[in-house]
Structure formats: structure tokens, C-alpha cells
């Protein structure tokens, strides 16, 4: 046994509403989301003995255990680069803990007041500290602060090398908005978007436009992981981890912003064994959950996870019709994603990937058997393939 293949399963999902101002603390949001996931699984506090969190999450595992009445914690851990590296990385931590018998059932969660700023500073705004330290000392003095600005550098390079156009990024944004408009829980429900809307949206960091950028959100989201054996006795149809991994490429160590020219990106490090571990190919994936912090990076992830060759993302995506439910052959982020459902650092995509395999998604892909889920690229990242029982 040399991988996580079929050694852990997601048995519970839960989330709060996604909003611009939750009106309550980040600890409250975490407890509500985790509590909802426990109820969904049919597990009580004594059944849960592990907590995996994003490093960026302000909540403390022991605070959560106290609030939820979890009597014994046997595992707690954090995923670095989470941030965007977390929505799969935390699930993988949980999976490894249950697969090795270190814990029985582990929660992976994200909770933040990132839009209201009540606890977490908005990522789309810069710190006003007068001195910049560490890596920032080489960036902030030039006015290079936000992720969108760094993505601007990478997106322009990709456009130059491969002929990618802004409309290809727009096709991704329009797809996520289309799905959000089929999801009454999405922040952008009731606010349709056309490609023209995207093309006319204002520049943030040319070539990145406003509508290439994810939302900023208050909320919480959680999943619960246990072993496949236990999963089959629980309330929900189990969803198994067919494969998963984390990755960073050499550029992550040598370059500050994403090196589009790098022959081995962080996504490619993972892709090398992900599909082999799952025993399937990219063609077997029924529904795609690509971390959508910025539309240009979604296109690059589709390429680097091997759904097409590098540079062919523009042809693969085309006008985006193939990514849109119900007619597309490979629906993308079917609840609206970070771009249009709510920015829960991707955990909302993990939850929707589970719904698809349970058969309970609003935009349900018929007979979906395999979901692909990735964390945010352009930082060290993680990805997994989920499956249901045949």
C-alpha cells in the first residue's frame, strides 16, 4: 500500500451561509460549520477526535473542541500555504490520520470573516505597515501587494507564450457565475454575468479584470473524514478518496511569482502520480473542481493537471460551454466556486464535489462517479480525486 487510495472517506459536510458580514465571530462560524458536518454524518462530539486546519485560520483546534464538547482529541494539524493550498491539504491530513489509525474521525474546516474584516484582514487590500519584512521587502516597496497583481504578471506571460486571450479567462468566470445562478445559497445568485460583462469589467492589474477575481466572504465550511469501513455504516452515501497529494515545484523555491515557463509546476508534481494512484485517467473525471482564486490560474491548472497540454487551455475551454451544467461534458465548480458562490478558500468546492458523488447537487451531473478537486495553484498546493462506490 503506497498511497492514500481508498483508505479514507468523506462522511459529513456542512457550511454556514456565505455573506459579506456574518455578524458573528470566526469561532462561532467554525463551530456552526463543523456542527453541521457532524449532524450530516450522524456523528456526535465523542465520535470526532481530530481537527485539521488551514494555517491561516485564526481558530484554535482546542477552542473548537471545547465549544463543540469534543472530549478527546487524538490528532491536530495544519496545512501550510493555506490559504489556497488548504481545501484539499486539510482533507489529506485528515485522511492520513484516519488511514494510519491515529484518529477515528477528523474534521477539516475553514472559517473566516474575510469580507467584513472582523478577524481576518481582506486579502484584496494591502497592509499599511510602514516597513516590509522578509519576502515582502522585495515586493511591497514597488507597490506589488495583492494576489491579483501577482497573477497579472503570470497571466500576461501565459498570453504571450500561448496566445491565450482574456475571453478564455472570461469563459471560466461566466461558467462559475452560471452555476451560482442555479444555487440560491451563492453570494452571486441572481446576478447573471455575460462574457461582455467580463470584458467590460474594470482592470485590476492588467490583464486581470475585476471579474477574473474571486469573491471575499464571511463564513465557515467543514468536512468530516473517516475510514471507508466506518463510512459504510454512517448516515450518508460515502465518498472515498481515490487519490490525493501535495506538491511544490522548483520554481516555488527560486521565484517569487508564478513561473509560467517552469517545466514542472506545483500542479504537475501532484499530477505525476495522482491519476496513477486512483487507477483512472483524466478522461474518467465526471466533474471538475478547480480552485478558482483567479480565472487565469484555473486555465493553467487545467493544463498542468493534464486535462490538456500546456498552452492548449484556450482550445480546451473555448467559449466555456463544455464546462457548464447541464450540457457540458466536464462541468466546472458546479455550485459557483470561489468566483461566484463564496470564497471559503476552496472548501465550498470540496463540499460540492462530495454532493456530486452523493447525487445531491443542485447541478447534478448524471451518474457522476469521479470528482477532481484542486487547491489553489501558484502556491504550493494539493489535489485529490474523489469517488463513490460503484
Amino acid at each position, binding site marked *: 500500500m503506497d498511497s492514500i487510495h481508498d483508505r479514507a472517506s468523506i462522511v459529513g459536510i456542512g457550511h454556514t451561509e456565505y455573506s459579506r458580514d456574518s455578524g458573528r465571530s470566526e469561532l462561532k462560524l467554525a463551530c456552526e460549520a463543523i456542527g453541521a458536518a457532524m449532524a450530516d454524518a450522524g456523528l456526535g462530539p465523542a465520535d470526532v477526535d481530530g481537527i485539521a486546519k488551514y494555517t491561516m485560520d485564526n481558530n484554535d483546534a482546542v477552542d473548537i473542541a471545547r465549544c463543540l464538547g469534543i472530549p478527546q482529541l487524538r490528532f491536530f494539524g495544519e496545512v501550510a500555504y493555506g490559504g489556497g493550498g488548504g481545501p484539499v491539504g486539510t482533507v489529506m491530513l485528515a485522511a492520513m490520520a484516519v488511514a494510519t489509525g491515529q484518529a477515528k474521525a477528523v474534521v477539516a474546516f475553514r472559517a473566516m470573516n474575510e469580507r467584513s474584516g472582523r478577524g481576518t484582514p481582506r486579502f484584496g487590500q*494591502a*497592509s499599511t505597515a*510602514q516597513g516590509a519584512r522578509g519576502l515582502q521587502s522585495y515586493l511591497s516597496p*514597488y507597490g506589488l501587494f*495583492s494576489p491579483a497583481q501577482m497573477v497579472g504578471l503570470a497571466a500576461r506571460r501565459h498570453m504571450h507564450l500561448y496566445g491565450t486571450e482574456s475571453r478564455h479567462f472570461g469563459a471560466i468566470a461566466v461558467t462559475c457565475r452560471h452555476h451560482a445562478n442555479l444555487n440560491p445559497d451563492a453570494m452571486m445568485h441572481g446576478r447573471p454575468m455575460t462574457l461582455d460583462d467580463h470584458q467590460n469589467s474594470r482592470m485590476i492589474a*492588467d490583464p486581470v479584470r475585476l471579474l477574473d477575481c474571486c469573491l471575499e466572504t464571511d463564513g465557515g465550511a467543514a468536512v468530516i473524514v473517516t475510514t471507508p469501513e466506518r463510512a459504510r455504516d454512517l448516515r450518508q452515501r460515502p465518498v472515498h478518496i481515490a487519490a490525493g497529494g501535495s506538491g511544490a515545484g522548483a520554481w516555488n523555491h527560486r521565484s517569487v511569482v508564478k513561473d509560467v515557463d517552469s517545466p514542472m509546476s506545483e500542479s504537475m508534481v501532484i499530477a505525476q502520480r495522482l491519476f496513477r494512484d486512483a487507477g483512472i485517467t483524466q478522461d474518467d473525471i465526471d466533474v471538475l473542481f478547480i480552485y478558482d482564486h483567479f480565472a487565469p490560474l484555473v486555465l493553467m491548472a487545467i493544463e498542468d493537471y493534464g486535462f490538456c497540454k500546456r498552452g492548449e487551455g484556450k482550445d480546451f475551454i473555448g467559449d466555456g460551454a463544455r464546462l457548464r451544467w447541464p450540457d457540458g461534458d466536464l462541468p466546472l465548480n458546479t455550485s459557483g466556486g470561489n468566483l461566484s458562490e463564496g470564497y471559503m478558500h476552496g472548501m465550498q468546492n470540496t463540499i460540492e464535489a462530495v454532493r456530486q458523488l452523493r447525487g445531491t447537487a443542485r447541478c447534478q451531473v448524471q451518474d457522476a462517479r469521479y470528482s477532481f478537486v484542486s487547491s489553489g495553484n501558484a502556491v504550493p498546493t494539493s489535489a485529490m480525486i474523489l469517488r463513490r462506490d460503484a
Partner: protein
Amino acid sequence: MNGVTAFPYPVPEYGAEPYWQACNDERLVMQRCTACSKFRWHPAPICPYCQADGFAWEPLSGRGRVHTWTVITHPVHPAAIGKVPYVVVEVELEEQPGLRMLSNLVDADPAAIAFDAPVALGFERHPSGQKLPIFRLA
């Protein structure tokens, strides 16, 4: 937020002081590995190419080409409000393939910027007094 009129100044990392001191003398220097002869940016304690410890601070010509750039139009920092649009550039320096650094491209019409366009080094004084290496189209 109000009253912040400058981007942050660089607080030199432990070991990176010579980089910033040379900037104040209007010289661009980088660490060059004494084992594999490669330059690196930004400063780092160990060579990222061969993992050797030894290095010397050596000057660069300041000549390079535009690798990529972004025109920042949305201010995310109070000091950016009066500065947008401004250009952040990644320059590939002539001394070594793949040796790239981030900076500003100043005095440039965004429409005139092109991939591989030659650039030349200059320096601008931050209000803190620290000089920053910047580039102009050559």
C-alpha cells in the same frame, strides 16, 4: 489608512543588508555562488541551484529585458491612490538566463512596453531614504 503616503520601505532581511546598502550607492549587487557561479535574486543564505554556502556580492550591469509585466490600475494601498496606473515588471537580467527580479518600470507608456524589450537600471529614493532599484525602457 489615512496619512499613509508611501509604499512600505524594505526592512533588510538578516544577511541581505549588503544588497540594500549597494542600492543606496546606486549599484545593483547580487550574491554569486562561489561553487557554481550562479547569481540569485532575491538574497538567500544558500545557493538554490547547487546548495553551496559560499558566495560573493558582485555587481550587475543593470541591463536586461522585459520578461513580463502588469499595469496596476486598482489601488489596494493608500499610497497607490495617487500612483495608479503604475507598472510592476519582471526583468530578466543579461548576466544569466532565468535570473529575474521584480521591480517597477517607470516613465513608460504602458502601450510601449513589449516582451523582451531592453531595459536599463535606475534608482529611486523611497521617502524613508532607502534607494530602490527600478528600470526604464532602454
